[in-house]
């Protein structure tokens, strides 16, 4: 697991290198937009916390409105 994690991290760093080298701020912000929530999810996964997906939340909302099978 650690080996695969390190491989993923290395590829990600390789991907980040041209972004930082060419100072592509927009690319960096977009990358962080996905990495930060990803890290939060990873933390939750490590703690064993399962979060309700938005589909389940909307489904419950629709059910309360009577829109359900």
């Amino acid at each position, binding site marked *: 697991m650690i080996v*695969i994690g390190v491989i*993923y991290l290395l*590829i990600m760093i390789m991907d980040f290198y041209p972004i930082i080298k060419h100072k592509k701020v927009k690319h960096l912000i977009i990358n962080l*937009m*996905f990495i930060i929530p*990803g890290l939060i999810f990873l933390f*939750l996964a490590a703690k064993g916390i399962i*979060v309700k997906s938005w589909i389940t939340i909307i489904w419950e909302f629709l*059910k309360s409105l009577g829109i359900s*099978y």
Partner: protein
Amino acid sequence: MTIAETKISGRQFMYSIICFIQASAILNAFISNITYQESWLVVIFAFIIFIPSVFMYGALINRFKDKNLIQIVIQIFGPILGRIISVIYLIFFLSITMFNITDLTDITKTSMLPTTPYIILVMMCILITAWAVRSGLRVLTIYSKMYVFLASFIIILSIIFLFNVIEIGNLFPIFSLPLKKYVQGIHILNAIPFGELVVFLLIAPNVQMNKKQTYKYFFLGASIGAFSFFLTVLRDISVLGETFGMFVFPSLVAFRLIRITEAITRIEILFIVILIILLIFKISILYYVTVITVSQIFNLKKYKNIVLSVGFFLMTAAIVLSANSIQHTLAAQNGAPFIWVTLQIIFPFILLLISLIFNIKSPKEESK
């Protein structure tokens, strides 16, 4: 302007559509415990109802020849409202990618690698698909033809091998369920897998085909895909009978019943391998579409630099947000069809209607 500059042929596009639907054949559990042994009938009705949507997608592609769905939305609704709607589409694409990753890892874990941690399987899946996505659309779809033939061969082979346990009587009686069940079954199938073909609206600008070919390839792809889906459901019901609705993966159980001789049994590994190939293909397409959507929303010229970070998000979200296939099935049966169909069928229809009423076309079409 399209972000991905590579072009694929119309035939590759068609084979990709077939592959995409064949990958969903495993998901027949969505309807199996709703319409039971009549599910084969529901597949037929669902596809007949879906046919106008295929032509609607074709019309939208032809009207905006060099634009993908996100670009069409932004052109029609303007940069602000268009981007807000695009974000909703992005959440939708992220969700279906996430669900398919969960399905793939679940089936791999239950059938082949029971002791491997879930996170490793998800990580491997993301690494392979990210590699494919970074290579571009041409590489992504190049083997679609081979996958289609391989999957069709396995389906036909399984029917031949299961011939001794097939009971035609299992397919009957028909029309014995309440009307609501048929409506629910058709609604689910129109959302998953047929409605998911909306993702091909993001690939269409990169396909070399004329107006006639657009309809031809889209329709042929959807029809052949639907036919193999129908064959899979028909095989599973005729083999499993009343127990069809009891399993999370009915096809897997049907394959386990194959006994060629006393020595050659348990050949479900064949099915699992082809299923993994098809699901990897489907996830790659969904992942690619998600990345293209992000690039389009933020007006990026290249998409390759964001592939891995989107993958990282998908990986962690798949672990935390969608726990397992059972939860996926429950969401797909009850909540998702209402939300999905809005984005897959109703909204593209509104786009087409507005473009027809106000005569909005892509600049290329207007200059003709």
